[in-house]
């Protein structure tokens, strides 16, 4: 069930340049059903900034009723969010959307998880759940530059992790596809989240594989009512569409026209 809750800030840390890790506590956590779901966050109680910000859930701890989100404080709203201190509350609507299907990879199989920039966070909870189930995870994480890399160690603990930076300041130089080219190919599934060009490149590179992609769109309501976040599907009828917020954000590869 989707709920709206003033969640309590447990802690907030800047884990890389302008990248914040925010842990929130509340009963909303009990409602999260799959990795890759997101929350819609009100960054201020004032009417400016007005709209909620969609942020993926990066990890959950159901026993503590805590979840962590990781975001880049870039625009007005996320900058305000980054000033929240422990004990303050944040108005959160969620969990929203449909996440990555963990069940699509079986115990003993291998999954490749490919993330780009602020698309990396939801893959962390996904990897934890896949690993817990006995799936071998390989992570390919692309960033702009060393200063904005995060969670390399955390992912390392869960499986082989390749970091790629555009400027070569950490890991391999280039794009995620450059590393993907050298990976073993006998994996069962891939999961990916990141900017559109990356998703496109990944989908093309693995056109013969079962894959799941998480999309972004500017949102109004976040729950399927306003038609802000639609994408055309590959179904070539002009009127066929999906909503990223409520049908997605994760779709099987090939569904969304990219």
């Amino acid at each position: 069930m989707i709920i709206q809750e003033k969640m309590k800030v447990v802690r907030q840390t800047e884990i890389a340049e302008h990248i914040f890790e925010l842990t929130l506590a509340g009963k909303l956590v009990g409602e999260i059903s799959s990795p890759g779901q997101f929350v819609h966050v009100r960054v201020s109680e004032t009417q400016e900034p007005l709209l909620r910000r969609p942020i993926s859930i990066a990890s959950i701890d159901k026993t503590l009723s805590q979840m962590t989100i990781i975001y880049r404080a870039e625009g007005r709203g996320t900058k305000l969010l980054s000033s929240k201190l422990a004990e303050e509350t944040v108005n959160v609507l969620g969990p929203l959307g449909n996440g990555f299907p963990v069940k699509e990879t079986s115990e003993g199989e291998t999954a490749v998880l490919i993330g780009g920039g602020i698309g990396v966070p939801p893959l962390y909870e996904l990897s934890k759940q896949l690993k817990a189930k006995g799936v071998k995870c390989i992570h390919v994480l692309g960033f702009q530059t060393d200063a904005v890399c995060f969670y390399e160690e955390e992912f390392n603990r869960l499986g082989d992790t390749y970091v790629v930076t555009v400027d070569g300041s950490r890991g391999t130089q280039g794009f995620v596809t450059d590393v993907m080219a050298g990976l073993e190919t006998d994996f069962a599934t891939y999961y990916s989240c990141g900017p559109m060009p990356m998703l496109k490149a990944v989908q093309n590179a693995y056109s013969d594989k079962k894959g799941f992609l998480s999309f972004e769109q500017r949102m109004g309501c976040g729950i399927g009512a306003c038609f802000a976040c639609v994408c055309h599907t590959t179904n070539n009828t002009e009127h066929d569409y999906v909503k990223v917020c409520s049908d997605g954000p994760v779709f099987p590869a090939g569904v969304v026209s990219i």
Partner: protein
Amino acid sequence: MSRLSVKLPGLELKNPIMPASGCFGFGKEYANFYDLSKLGAIMIKATTLETRFGNPTPRVAETASGMLNAIGLQNPGLQSVMENELPWLETFDVPIIANVAGTETADYVEVAKTISTAPNVQALELNISCPNVKCGGITFGTDPVQARDLTAAVKKVSNVPVYVKLSPNVTDIKEIAKAVEEGGADGLTMINTLIGMRLDHKTGRPIIANGTGGLSGPAVKPVAIRMVYEVSQTVGIPIIGMGGIADTDDVIDFLSAGASAVAVGTANFVDPFVCPNIIEELPAKLDDLGIGQLSELIGRSHRL
């Protein structure tokens, strides 16, 4: 009769609060949050004759205390609304106001004729003010003669009272209001969105793929209040007011300005519970103001 109830042409509202068209879909999503029967009415998403995909994305952009949208009237089309959306809404005890849109008079007439026969549709809202479609829409809303003629044409075929939704993007909204009253409108709904634009600071290009979008939210409330205040003193038909309503005080303001009921749009995105919360708070607010029946507030700003 409850102290919150309002009687308008075709509508017996339990309370004056309804979600605005386009901000509530066909109700399904909000039904997960609360019982839709609590609402005074529901203004459903604009319905056109044919299925519409609408404009390319991005379709929304935030602005200071507001937002721009250029959805472009995406909707499943008349047939699907009649077969799927409206019957589902019949499970709730709530009157539906069907927002009717089109490109030319014939479309409007056809949609109005059919949709006004649905058992739960108790009024039409004629959308002559959508700024986000290339033809039709707002062109009807900025020319008094076209506005009057379209209203008359739709009135002729509609089974239920017709409210006309006015555009604020005009030099003199009173003139358009009088024209649609002349055309036979049973009521007015106002305001639709102001035309606006936001650019990307980096590229300099419009953020909304369509270029311009419609501005809504608290930012536009002063313009909406001014227009309701002016129009309510100019015409004899009732007004459903909207534009920036986010809390109970805002509702009081619109009623004071001369609206008989109100619609809440953008605020649903900020707080999905905004409508039932306002409905719950209203009685205490009336007590604070020393007002018995809600209707006593209507047009209070004009007096003295």
